[in-house]
């Protein structure tokens, strides 16, 4: 599970460099997210622009990461591709997360 993190402008930018977060990958995704966010107390943006598909297990894993970070630490999402966006919209999880259509400009090359 290729998940890369770097700090930028006071937040942790996490890029998922995988095409799928599915039932076969959900646990590894959650474990990897736990690793890269360990020791970080600020907000986290999850860049999902390379993820083409996410199933309900993947969605559950993203929710689990949000709960893992806790209410004091914001998790925002960016760059949802059409099918991933559809899963968030259908399940109304788009109302739970702040979702940026694309990764905000100031974070793209910062770091």
């Amino acid at each position, binding site marked *: 599970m290729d998940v890369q993190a770097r700090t930028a402008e006071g937040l942790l930018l996490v890029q998922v460099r995988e095409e799928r977060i599915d039932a*076969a990958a959900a646990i590894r995704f959650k474990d990897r997210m736990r690793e890269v966010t360990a020791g970080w107390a600020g907000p986290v943006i999850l860049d999902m622009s390379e993820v083409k598909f996410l*199933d309900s297990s993947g969605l559950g894993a993203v929710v689990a990461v949000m709960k893992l970070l806790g209410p004091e630490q914001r998790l925002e999402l960016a760059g949802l591709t059409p099918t991933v966006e559809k*899963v968030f919209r*259908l399940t109304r999880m788009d*109302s739970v997360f702040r979702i940026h259509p694309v990764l905000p400009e100031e974070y793209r090359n910062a770091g």
Partner: protein
Amino acid sequence: MQAEVACCPETGDAAWTIRLALQGDALAVRRGLGLLFTDPRLAALSPDSRGTAEIVLAEVLNNIVEHAYALVPGGVEVTIRLLERGLCCCIRDHGAPMPGLELPPGQPVDCSDELPEGGFGWFMIRSLARNLRYCRGGRWNELCFLLPVNE
């Protein structure tokens, strides 16, 4: 091979039929979906129709892996036919029956209290698929449904 679609309610001529047999485990489901959605016949559908089909098929197959084959592994057969009304999908497994021989209700997830990490699957299936029908045969389950297709 004749399609094993004993209880499919959808009749009519199919423009094409795709059949795929796979093992009931999470990695085989991922590979199977990859094979299906690179098939030129499914790849020719609109991105929106393809996305819908992949979401529903993934949820149905994952449910089979997690529940029907929770104790004993087995195989799954997928049959997809393009009808005038849409994509007719029939999925057969040889595992444990649905509890009560009924499909789960698939209630919307309650976001007001603590957020759940699961329970989204059947809600998505029921939101996207039409004419869902479940049959239990001697030692198999079959689920058939219709997915709308737009150009």
